[in-house]
């Protein structure tokens, strides 16, 4: 079944505290949609509103056209995977997976077949008669997934399902989840605060802060054209530099350095904030003449990390900038060197000075 989720003007309060003031999103059928945001921003709260565990103080939640605000949890046909897996400890693996099917009063052999199918799919068939306490974290995770999927839910909800696993297993399971989601073709909402995980796994990501969605888009859009400074700093690393835009000659000037910016749809001069990712600087030695077309600065720190080398440089204004270059055999730069920077100007983002709006429209 194909299910799109539509949320309009959702409102969530705990007592007097408004956690989610007014939130709207559309999640498409079969989409892998991720909620990403700092701790306490309301991701879990929103997810649990969709699942039916939290009350909804206002707004409309719909699966396709159907309003679900008042619907019982057990009627929503949702598959849910919890952070701590929530495996029933007194049931075997098989009984755990069968549980939802039994509640649906399906015939016995159908239950058996469906259960076997998903145990097989999740590669835990051999553990089917074990008690959960004798499973590893990754295996428990697979049981939780099988249990959530075997009921053929309309929607799959996952709240930080991988956060209890070690780094290596996390990478492995995230691929398992991704493949499974595409195979089964199920609309999925995934919560995480690991941005790399979000990028790797999602069709689209919603970045949240304080209960407000800051940006919805594909991982690429969000990384390259963040809608505001919060998103730019939350996803990946970036340098924020204050500058001024002059509309007449379409120039951006900062710290005794000026570069042309043709694409800015702005008609008047205004102060702006630039967001430049560390890998978008090019660093070169000062030319012998001392004249340059770049931003002049001095290296204050060099950290070698294998694949890349991180540089910290100081502008003449005193501001520190982070730069990442691919490592080379013999590093030409060392602490104390004066260097000049040039920019990959098409990758720069320019925000209003307060950082609330991206002036470049993608």
């Amino acid at each position, binding site marked *: 079944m194909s299910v799109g989720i539509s949320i309009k003007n959702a409102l969530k309060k705990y007592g007097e505290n408004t956690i989610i003031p007014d939130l709207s999103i559309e999640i498409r059928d079969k989409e892998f949609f991720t909620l990403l945001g700092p701790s306490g921003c309301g991701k879990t709260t929103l997810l649990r509103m969709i699942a039916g565990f939290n009350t909804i*103080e206002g707004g409309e939640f719909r699966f396709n056209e159907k309003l679900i605000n008042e619907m019982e949890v057990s009627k929503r046909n949702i598959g849910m995977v919890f952070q701590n897996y929530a495996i029933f400890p007194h049931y075997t693996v098989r009984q755990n997976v069968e549980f939802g099917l039994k509640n649906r009063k399906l015939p016995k052999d159908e239950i058996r077949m469906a259960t076997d199918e998903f145990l097989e799919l999740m590669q835990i068939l051999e553990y089917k008669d074990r008690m959960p306490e004798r499973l590893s974290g990754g295996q428990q995770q697979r049981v939780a997934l099988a249990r959530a999927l075997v009921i053929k839910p309309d929607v799959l909800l996952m709240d930080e399902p991988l956060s209890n696993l070690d780094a290596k297993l996390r990478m492995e399971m995230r691929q398992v989840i991704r493949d499974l989601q595409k195979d089964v073709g199920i609309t999925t909402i995934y919560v995480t605060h690991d941005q790399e995980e979000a990028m790797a796994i999602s069709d689209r990501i919603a970045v949240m802060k304080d209960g407000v969605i800051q940006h919805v888009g594909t991982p690429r859009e969000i990384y390259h054209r963040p809608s505001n400074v919060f998103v730019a700093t939350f996803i990946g690393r970036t340098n924020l530099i204050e500058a001024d835009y002059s509309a007449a000659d379409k120039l951006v000037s900062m710290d005794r350095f000026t570069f042309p910016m043709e694409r800015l749809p702005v008609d008047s001069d205004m102060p702006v904030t630039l967001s430049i990712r560390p890998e978008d600087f090019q660093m070169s030695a000062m030319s012998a003449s001392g004249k340059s077309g770049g931003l002049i600065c001095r290296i204050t720190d060099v950290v070698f990390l294998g694949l890349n080398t991180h540089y910290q440089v100081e502008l003449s204004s005193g501001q520190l900038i982070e730069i990442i270059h691919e490592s080379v055999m013999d590093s030409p730069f060392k602490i104390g060197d004066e260097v000049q920077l040039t920019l990959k100007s098409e990758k720069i983002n320019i925000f209003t000075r307060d950082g609330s709006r991206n002036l470049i429209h993608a």
Partner: protein
Amino acid sequence: MRKKYDIWSLVTLSVLGLYAIFLIYPLFNLLSQAVVDKDTGTFTLAYFVKFFGKPYYFNTLLNSFKVTFGVTILTILLGMPLAYIFTRFEIFGKSFLRILIILSSMSAPFIGAYSWILLLGRSGVITTFFKNAFGIHFPSIYGFSGILVVLTLQLYPLIFLYVSGALKNVDNSLLEASENLGCSGMKRFFIIIVPLIGPTLFAGGLLVFMRSLADFGTPMLIGEGFRTFPVTIFNEFISELGGDDGFAAAISIIAIIITTIIFLVQKYLSTRKTFSMNSMNKIRPVKARGLTKVLIHVYSYALISLSIMPQVYIIYTAFRKVNGTVMVPGYSLGNFSDAFEKVGRSISNTIIIPGISLIIIVILAALIAYITVRRRNILTGIADTVSMVPFIIPGSVVGITLLIAFDKPPILLSGTMTIMVIGLVLRRLPFTIRSSVAVLQQIPMNVEEAALSLGSSKLNAFYKITMPMMAAGLISGAILSWVTMISELSTAILLYVGRTKTLTVEIYTQIIRGNYGIAAALSTILAVLTLISLLIFNKVSKGDDLSM
């Protein structure tokens, strides 16, 4: 916006309804008895004036305080070091001693009192032996000191159990850190350990306080002229000369007010000083050496032998030959056959009445724990508070309260088994609810949510998922309740009629009548029942803490 009412709202309302009928209504009845003049129907404080005006009555209050404070302090002084020794050192025969400690606390105190009379009373075996052999006169076991000895030996195990539990949560690295910083031995015990276990100690102390304040059988048997509160309440109510309900009710009200104050003070003191501890590195018992080793063994064995002695002696006398009310040389099983023949009914009553109560208690406790943990709202909050109320009402007051309320229409229950069941359920529920709450708090909520999201109904999720996960905890709580209920006297002594006599009531009656043989036989049966229950408890709880 979402529907506010579900099956749990219904449960909450039913629970509140039950409490309204069986607790609130009787309590208001009690209050009105105490402040309304029976003849004129007007408001009066005459009963209270009478109580505080006459030293005869007022002194019983002072007496009770002497006993309770004395017992509480002594139990702490005896129980806390024992718990520390048991946690910190290896003791020869520790697990056996542990069972003895628990066993000695689980019997009815008045049986202990009775046994001490047989040992140290006017014609007690020890007294007589010393008098005949050496001409030494033992100090009297009757009166204040006797009550103090009996109740202390009976109740220090509570402190022992509470403190042992708390010490389990003290991380050994705290002790090591303290030693590393130059503080060890006794100093460390008082500076580090006592403050950490303080709140638990308070809680245990409160329980001892409540039990000793409410205990009726001990002062009745051994107090002689030294009358305490429950004795007075009982006498005024049951008095041969036609008891005075109003006056008994007034005394009951005073009792409730006192226990409430004590309870609130304890609560205030311990919430201010609670630490959350989670011990990764438990204190491991070490081998003691030299003098320490000798001292701790002497202390443990002496204390525990003293406390188990009355039980052992009673069991011994059960097998003695008895002629009428006098013991004669020789041994037989005659006491047991007499007991089964004459008062066998009390044995079956002791299975049936606490049995039925237990079923009700387990179900109600599971439901109430559930609504108070998982469905927090104003109504469940009220249910939670109300369910704790009986904790601070002394047992004999519960008895009187129920009798006054239910020996007249609209609800006529006096003389039935039902009223005894109600009494037991009311008194025992607070404990079982607490332990169920603790169990429930260990179970993550989203296990149940997982069940809901898999299409299970709320009730189904409770029965299939939450209940089984609570089961072990519920069952061990239930066994403890059971043990306490079969040795309960102070409520039963007020509520029983001939048909509904329980073992403890029968034992008490037989002691009063001087049928020592039958009394001892019945006590032995009770002890065996208790022992079996405790062994089952040990199996079920896999060595978990006992908490009352």
